[in-house]
């Protein structure tokens, strides 16, 4: 009894992890499904065909490629701008700094439907209503990724010992050398994490995208559209592949970290 009581928290935590993973298991399983009818929600039979021909459902791969292009561009822009902002917030003291801090936090604290609808209101009132598509989606994605980048990079910068930079300066490194040889390599994991976060936020966004995409179809929009009709099992292939890719990245990062600290 005492043994159970001491491990109760761990036991509950494992149950919660199970809750987090239950749908993933379903997604993986369904990626091998061979549905009997178009509107099938049950597992009818095992097949490799979905993995062999992921592009079979019309428009699926176009949607994935649109999402990839938007995601990569949004990641590059948001990570660059956000990293600069994080440096400003942590390494510089200036008037209005706490106001800037709040300002950067606000997009994170606004419901997506409000962010999406306000951008739509802007695009419509400035005459861009007919030109919604790739670029308006990109603009929106950079906007909501920015805050997350700033917060992530800021956390890394704050945890960094600034005496390392002072030491470099003491050893006659100029500001440029100090930045590229000391600061940047130390902050890099934070920037990488921010980029990864941006990409997954962008790739996954539906609510804001749907309001500002016009006729452009991203992957989540494709999933939404097919959820109203029939769900091709290939959607689960993409979901599983994304999950495995993320797992490889995360585990690889963890292994590299353990090797370095050993």
């Amino acid at each position, binding site marked *: 009894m005492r043994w159970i009581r001491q491990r109760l928290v761990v036991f509950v935590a494992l149950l*919660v992890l199970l809750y987090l993973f239950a*749908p*993933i298991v379903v*997604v993986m399983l369904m990626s091998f499904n061979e549905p009997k009818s178009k509107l099938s929600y049950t597992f009818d039979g095992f097949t490799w065909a979905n993995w062999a021909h992921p592009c079979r459902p019309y428009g699926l791969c176009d949607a994935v490629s649109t999402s990839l292009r938007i995601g990569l561009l949004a990641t590059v822009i948001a990570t660059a701008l956000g990293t600069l902002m994080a440096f400003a917030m942590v390494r510089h003291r200036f008037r209005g700094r706490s106001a800037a801090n709040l300002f950067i936090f606000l997009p994170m604290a606004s*419901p997506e*439907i*409000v962010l999406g609808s306000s951008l739509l209101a802007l695009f419509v009132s400035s005459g861009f209503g007919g030109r919604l598509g790739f670029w308006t989606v990109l603009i929106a994605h950079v906007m909501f990724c920015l805050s997350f980048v700033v917060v992530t990079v800021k956390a890394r910068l704050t945890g960094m010992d600034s005496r390392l930079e002072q030491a470099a300066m003491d050893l006659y490194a100029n500001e440029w050398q100090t930045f590229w040889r000391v600061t940047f390599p130390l902050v890099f994991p934070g920037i990488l994490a921010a980029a990864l976060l941006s990409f997954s936020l962008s790739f996954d966004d539906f609510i804001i995208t749907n309001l500002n995409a016009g006729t452009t179809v991203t992957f989540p929009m494709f999933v939404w559209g097919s959820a109203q009709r029939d769900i091709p099992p290939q959607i689960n292939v993409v979901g599983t592949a994304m999950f495995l890719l993320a797992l490889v990245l995360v585990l690889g990062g963890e292994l590299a970290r353990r090797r370095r600290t050993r």
Partner: protein
Amino acid sequence: MSAVGQLGAAAAAPPAKVERSGRRFTGYLLLLPGGLWLLLFFVVPLVSLLAASLYDPNGSIEAGFKMTWHFQNFVDTMADYARPFGRSLWYSLLTTLFCLLLGYPLAYAIAMKAGRWKNLMLALVIAPFFTSFLIRTLSWKLLLSDNGFVVDALKWLHILGPDGRLLATTTAVVTGLTYNFLPFMVLPLYASLERIDPRLIEAGGDLFANPFTTFRTVTLPLSMPGVVAGTLLTFIPAAGDYINAQLLGTPRQRMIGNDIQRLFSAGAYPTAAALSVTLMAAIVVLVLLYVWRAGTEELV
């Protein structure tokens, strides 16, 4: 300090002054590109949304909308949409509560008990994120379906009546919402639990407090910043979400996001904008009240 101090420093050592003011300038320069982006695509849009909510509701996309300062929009939309509005807030409140109940033990176990498995467990919390939000919600549809094993198991345990169902009920919508926003609760909770000095908890034990008293008087109060940040990061997105209500519920469970989305795609901009502004205002008021009650100013 400020001006006078700097003048003094400048008199003593002119080069230092040049450098310092140069650095302060750098701060603004670094903020400029991102700040401009946020100004143009976050602040200006919010203003346009506010403006759109006051347009004449009789306009259309083709004919254009006229600015008539039509404040009546707010009264009309509230009369029509009070129910889904209240439902959204109620569902997100429930979601926040469940996320806290499930997320706290998980965050606690990762921060205090996981040892060298800490990073791996954290990665496991984030990993499901990478499979699309929509795909995961769709798979809940399958998990909760009428002949699925969850329903069967609950019937067997007599928790659910023989003709009971989960899909297309409030339970399904709140389950989905809780699921989707749980990581937003776990991560801030973990961050604040992780920061607690374990010696403080040991001290609680040394002073003859039982584990529960130690938790109530030491651990919980010290983790409050995480609780506040986590509840905000769960409540706010949940209030605006409509994916869970759409995929796991019926029109009887619809939330305000469903209506905003529907009205926008139907081109009823003034009504949709008024609803959106009302949602934002309600959230801002609730959050301010909550933060004021919780007394935590440090959020990020």
